[in-house]
């Protein structure tokens, strides 16, 4: 497996997080949470450092990472889109909304657009069932989304990017 060398800064960051949890293997999930929130994802090299710091096998770390859907080994898009697939959203048409997003971005669930702008995932009930169906873009929640609105929501972020590019 070709190894990408992690930036020293990233290694230090992981070490720091592990130290904060006393390098206790029982804190593995907390460590993974914090590292992912800082680095965005958990590639193999990161898991190797965590394994070393907590003195556990990297297979075990990988076993845990692949067990929990919250952890990802792939970088997410600039604007991660999540469609709630809880029952309430499902019976109110989340599937149609999802397929419309897939169609418009030409990606499947779990993928990122080639320009790195959007990634798509499904999640289980964000607990905003009153607003079903619910779509989240980053931290922002969109409620009562219809397939017709998908274009508008995506455009918001496309324009946002364009505007950012202009000012930058």
């Amino acid at each position, binding site marked *: 497996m070709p190894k990408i060398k992690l930036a020293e800064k990233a290694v230090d960051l992981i070490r720091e997080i592990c130290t904060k949890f006393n390098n206790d293997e029982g804190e593995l*999930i907390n460590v993974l949470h914090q590292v992912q929130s800082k680095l965005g994802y958990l590639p193999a090299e990161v898991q190797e450092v965590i394994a070393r710091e907590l003195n556990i096998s990297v297979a075990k770390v990988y076993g845990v990472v692949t067990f929990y*859907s919250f952890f990802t080994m792939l970088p997410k898009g600039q604007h991660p889109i999540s469609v709630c697939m809880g029952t309430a959203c499902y019976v109110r048409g989340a599937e149609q909304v999802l397929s419309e997003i897939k169609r418009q971005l030409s990606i499947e669930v779990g993928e990122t657009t080639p320009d790195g702008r959007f990634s798509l995932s499904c999640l*289980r009930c964000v607990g905003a069932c009153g607003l*079903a169906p619910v779509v989240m873009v980053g931290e922002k929640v969109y409620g009562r989304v219809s397939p017709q609105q998908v274009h508008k929501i995506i455009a918001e972020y496309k324009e946002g990017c364009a505007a950012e590019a202009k000012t930058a």
Partner: protein
Amino acid sequence: MADYTMHVLVCGGTGCKASQSELIKLNFQNRLSELGLSDEVQVVMTGCFGFCEKGPIVKILPDNTFYVHVTPEDVTELVEEHIVKGRKVERLLYVDPETQASVHDAKGMEFYKKQVRIALRNCGFINPENIDEYIARDGYAALGSCLLEKTPEETIRIIKDSGLRGRGGGGFPTGLKWEITRKSVSDQKYVVCNADEGDPGAFMDRSILEGDPHSVIEAMAICGYCIGADKGLVYIRAEYPLAVERLKIAIKQAREYGLLGEDIMGSGFNFDIEIRYGAGAFVCGEETALIHSMEGLRGEPTVKPPFPAESGYKGKPTNVNNVETFANIPPIINKGAGWFAAIGTEKSKGTKVFALAGKINNVGLIEVPMGTTLREVIYDIGGGIKDGREFKAVQTGGPSGGCLTKDFLDTPIDYDNLLAAGSMMGSGGMIVMDETDCMVSIAKFYLEFTLDESCGKCAPCRIGNKRLHEILERITEGNGTKEDLDRLRMLSTVIKDASLCGLGQTSPNPVLSTLDHFYDEYLAHVDSKTCPSGQCKALLKYTILEDKCTGCTLCFRNCPVGAISGEKRSPHYIDQSLCIKCGVCYEKCKFDAIIIG
């Protein structure tokens, strides 16, 4: 400036609106204006009263009079009698079904107030980020009285006597659980709060943690005192950032007040709480899996016994209760076991919080006494089915539960009745479905969920659910056979019987309960290859009615796959082998010449 002395509230809920409540409002306004009373009486449209069977509803303030079944024609009488003369219109008053007496003051309408808030008592009342507001509403008084005035045994006795059962789904008696953990001998024990609410369509625990985090903290400390633990852990979904934030604030405030930490209120009892995060695994709601997850492992369940009460977190006796169970503890201590036991049914005491969702008007969080019927929940609180459609089923218990039909609408909700009906209480998700929902697809939806969330440890759940899903997929795609229906049932029975944990043991419930109650719908899918509710796309058949088709060619031009043919101005035809059932032709046809069968 108007200075209203009287208000007329007209229900604007969906059900009442359908019965002309807007016209009622208009009539009121017109009549009042004619009498020159517009500046004295204000007419207001409200949200749903949750009493749709008796709608349209009109309430007149300040005398709190509640009129039912009001028609637009009744308005004149109401204005002239009640508003002008101050005489109540007897014939429109609500009649108490038990006493057969007309109710003059809505405050006396017990029936109307179907909800009793115990677990949710502070949600929506206090600022969850301010411990003082919690204390003002009796917060931490229960902890204080336990620590300083009661022995652990006495406290456990109260919980046992109250009849409280676990609200996470299983319904194990809480007091008994505490007693068993108390009796386990160990140098260290733990209290765990299961806040890994993962049922799709359930958000009770999230709401409690967001609205009243201190009640959970207080209850955990009481539990710690009872079982002999000085450490508590809250296992919470990482997908609930707001709940986490509020819980953190609450823990900090409790520590600052010395309500967590050492020597709480001078009792010598120490207790503190840590937060552990879930990471997106439904199976971690199962207590042994939850414990493994807290230990930094894959959240795979292990065979019970040993139960966590004997060997749990780090191999030490551990008491696991869910959020709602804990939220019930302080009021039980404060108001006594008898008070709590007086609410609910014989074997299910107290109340249950439900997250009401799906095709229902008033999606929301409700808390009703055990024994309330589904009909009351759906029609009197939930405001009935959305868009005036027909009720078809209600799904309780999430992926572990089942679908209940009309026949169960009058079944009182409690642990045992739901189990007997082929569903279960579960953690409290209640999803309402209408006639447009295909029950085979619903079963498939839940199976998909289970499939995604199965840990993969035991063979029946890992492979069996995959096979169940494949069969359902076959059926919804029109490739199912009658033998498939038998296979579904046989396989479901074994998965239930032989799986390792609660997830697998209940995962076929959505299949079995829909097979039981909607067998005809399954049959339609496999026999005539039709989906009665029109949800299964592969089973739809679009056809053009010759007598209605004008040959406008609009469908022909819009069909993305060229499945439609026909001469201009003569009836067109759909080639079924090419049709991808996208429905564009159906939408475009201006003459209703295309039907879905």
